[in-house]
């Protein structure tokens, strides 16, 4: 199966619906204006993944949620460690020392991830009249290439990877991060049908 340009445009629309909602939820939670980029949706080669993530061995924070219900796949939130510390600073109102993350930090980040993913998905689900259930987020700090293992495996049968990315932030004081949606190839078909039906 191949992913066409039309599919990529369609996915961009879907991401746009979700991202706007997630940004306003995060904005409400933190009392900060959160900017979001227009989602980008493209097929990229294995070699490009590393480049986009600041290098294959760049150490980043990854939070992963599995989608089930009408749509199967994953949502990944990826942040530079410095941006993750900044998110915590805004959220908890205290400085986070330049060292390893502690367990309470993980819990706070998990909450951010929970809120963003559930608002993102609920906007998409209600617009398209689908049921999409997010799992509890799983977090890890590791090399970018190991974290980006997820899209590589979801699209393992293709020779490139679907990269549906929305950037949050912009303002230096704001919360910065990358939000990736990765529906499985089967669920791509479901999304297509649902989007056509909802127009």
């Amino acid at each position, binding site marked *: 199966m191949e992913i066409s340009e039309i599919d990529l445009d369609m996915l961009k629309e879907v991401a746009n619906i979700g991202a706007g909602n997630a940004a306003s939820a995060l904005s409400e939670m933190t009392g900060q204006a959160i900017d979001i980029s227009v989602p980008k949706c493209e097929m990229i080669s*294995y*070699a490009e993944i*590393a480049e986009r993530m600041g290098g294959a061995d760049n150490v980043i924070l990854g939070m992963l949620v599995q989608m089930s219900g009408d749509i199967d796949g994953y949502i990944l939130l990826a942040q530079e460690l410095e941006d993750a510390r900044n998110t915590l600073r805004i959220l908890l109102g205290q400085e986070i020392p330049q060292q390893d993350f502690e367990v309470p930090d993980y819990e706070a980040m998990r909450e951010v991830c929970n809120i963003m993913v559930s608002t993102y998905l609920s906007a998409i689900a209600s617009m398209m009249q689908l049921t999409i259930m997010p*799992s509890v987020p799983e977090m890890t700090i590791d*090399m970018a*290439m*190991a974290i980006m293992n997820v899209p*590589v*495996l979801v699209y*393992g049968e293709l020779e490139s990877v679907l990269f549906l990315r929305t950037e949050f932030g912009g303002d230096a004081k704001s919360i910065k991060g990358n939000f990736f949606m990765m529906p499985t190839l089967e669920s791509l078909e479901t999304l297509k049908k649902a989007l056509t039906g909802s127009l």
Partner: protein
Amino acid sequence: MKTVIIGMAELAVVKAPQHVATLGLGSCIGVVLYDKINKIGGMVHIVMPDSGKKSNVIRAKYADTGVDELLSQMVRAGANPRALTAKLAGGAHMFGGLGKSDALKVGDRNAFNSKMAVLRLRIPIIAEDMGGSYGRTIELDPENGSLMVKTVGKGVKTI
């Protein structure tokens, strides 16, 4: 001399003093073959367990084709197939806490199929560092065949 760094679904063969490395193996496997007499080393970065016997695939991407391809390129570079030993690393289950996630569990199958592919070629596996739920960066020194395995927060070791 500069280290040759290979990406996903790529392979390279080097001679001492040149090194070969790959960064951030997750569920992928780095298979390393080494000829200590000629000091020739090769590495392939395997992504998926099985090519499904399709033709026209990127051979280095799959366990069943990648190891064969590495061997033939080693031999072409002057390695003696009877002198070869193998080491393997990778095969993690990233985000292992998401228990029911089958798509991400490919690490185990990658590990199994890669080992089978090496053993089918009658090459002894002398060391491995596989499994867990963390990434690995590996670097081979063909001077002595040592394979350095680096992780985030779990230290560096040589196998």
